[in-house]
């Protein structure tokens, strides 16, 4: 009897640590596969450093045949910026969830964007703090029930979902690459991530890719409802597509001014 065809996995995929540690239906595996394919396509396995945050993203600490460091909640980007500044020849990937990127690590994100740090940041947005049991995240949709918004998120009290890529696109200097992809379109997501790595390789500036993702465990959804939430509910708040290419300037107020100093 014919054995079902094995799906093709990226070369950086570490077989010894599979099956991976994520829940069934989790989007992390898809995002990581897209990242792996992008690394393969650019042939940068030997010089890529993968950094993962706290939260479910930490479960990727042994996912790849890549030198990897698992850091603290929200602190992955500073660690990788530290590595990049010390060893510019390396390619650094900062991988985290929406809580790490937009709440506890927001100041690092804003500062790295302003500095146009040569780092490729991938944020997996599943609208909840998943590892800790499904609390409200900065990305939780208005009306969405979580453990800390059991009656649904009230935007008047707790704000609206933060728009990470839009924030980075507004403030990063020219040279930045910013996109939002989704696990619902793997080819496009891989493409965005590859462009983000390319941006770092060319030394142009920061690369920031958010990936809309799923958490059926904490959403308490079946397969159909999970996909419905990712494809319809989330994209209503979080439009998918490229927000900044390296040639474009910031979408926020920005004026190119020559370097200035005090008159001596």
């Amino acid at each position, binding site marked *: 009897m014919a054995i079902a065809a094995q799906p093709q996995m990226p070369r950086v995929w570490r077989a010894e640590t599979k099956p991976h540690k994520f829940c069934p239906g989790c989007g992390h595996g898809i995002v990581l596969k897209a990242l792996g394919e992008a690394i393969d396509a650019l042939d940068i396995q030997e010089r890529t450093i993968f950094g993962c945050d706290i939260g479910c993203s930490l479960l990727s600490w042994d996912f790849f045949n890549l030198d990897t*460091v698992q850091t603290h909640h929200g602190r992955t980007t500073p660690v990788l910026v530290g590595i990049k500044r010390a060893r510019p020849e390396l390619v650094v990937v900062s991988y985290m969830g929406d809580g790490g990127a937009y709440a506890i690590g927001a100041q690092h994100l804003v500062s790295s964007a302003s500095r146009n740090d040569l780092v490729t940041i991938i944020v997996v947005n599943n609208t909840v703090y998943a590892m800790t049991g499904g609390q409200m995240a900065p990305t939780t949709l208005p009306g969405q029930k979580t453990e800390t918004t059991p009656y649904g998120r009230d935007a008047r009290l707790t704000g609206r979902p933060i728009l990470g890529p839009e924030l980075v696109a507004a403030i990063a200097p020219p040279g930045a690459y910013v996109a939002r992809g989704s696990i619902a379109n793997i080819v496009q997501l891989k493409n965005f991530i590859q462009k983000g790595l390319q941006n770092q390789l060319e030394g142009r500036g920061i690369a920031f890719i958010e990936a809309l993702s799923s958490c059926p465990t904490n959403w308490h959804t079946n397969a159909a409802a999970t996909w419905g939430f990712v494809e319809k509910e989330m994209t209503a708040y979080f439009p998918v597509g490229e927000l900044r290419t390296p040639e474009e300037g910031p979408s926020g107020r920005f004026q190119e001014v020559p370097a200035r100093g005090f008159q001596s």
Partner: protein
Amino acid sequence: MTGNEVVAWAALAAGADIMYGYPITPQNEIMHYWTRMAPKYERGFLQTEDEISAGFATVGGVLAGKRAFTATAGPGNILMQEAMAMAEMMRLPTVVVVTQRGGPSTATVIYSQQELNLTCFGGNGEGLRIVYSPSSHDELFLYTIKAFNSAWKYRFPTFVLGDGYQSKMREPVTIFDPEARGITMEPCRPMVGLSGLPGEERDPAHLRNTYNLEDELYEVLMTAIKEYEAIAPQVVEWDTYAVDDAELLIIAHGVVSRAARAAVVSLRERGFKAGYFRPVTLKPFPAETLRPLAARARNLLVVESAYGQLKRQVQAGLYGLETPVTGYLRPGMGITPEEIVEFVHAKELI
């Protein structure tokens, strides 16, 4: 030169590759001098958005195999502890220069010895760190160089615990190339970004600080604790003066030990049998050396610009010994030899 300038020169002489820093008084001039020298000697610098980032970027620089360091004080030292806890867990040879200021909270930008507890035991762990407390500019130079060597040799986060007085005061100092004095700099090696294709030519470096099981964590911690205990006798340092027949042993660290020593000299001149003991390493603490000296004395006096942070270490180290321990405890205040002598007589310690 000033102490902050000494630290910058020491880091340069030690071959430090990169500094990550965030402004806080009284540490600032370490960055000021470093940023002036760094481009001339092809060294790096990044001013980060806060001390959290400075600490973690230092962790990154070290992971990349470079002599990376940072410097901070007071509230910045608090924020730095998060990254240093990671360094402690993962055995990363970070170097942090602390210039103590008044505390708690914002307090003063001037001086104190109130960051002993934080620097020795900060973080949610066991305090597996090396902490040097220099007392002069010559020592500031020497122990900043030594901090890089101890960090990379033993792989525990290493601190130079200075203070605002040492940072700002000027005194003569001899700076030197470590090699010329026979000090070989401990080589650095990268922990990520190794050569060879990971997974094919070698195993990938998979570095983590998270564990699933109690047993797993226990094994990692006990390995580190046993290694720390094994290296402690090689790391531990102290200084003594006139201790052999001392009836009163005055114990102080850092800049205060200069006042303590001067007080002992003054007491000796008047025929009083006083001696002085100074822990140079606060972590590990030289309790084994102090114990027999303390046992011989009639009184112990701990002098510090904090309310008992050193005294607690002394008492813990001498547990079971019956020699009475008195404290001259002046949190956030400078201490003169005259004050110490006056206190000794007022309390009839000799």
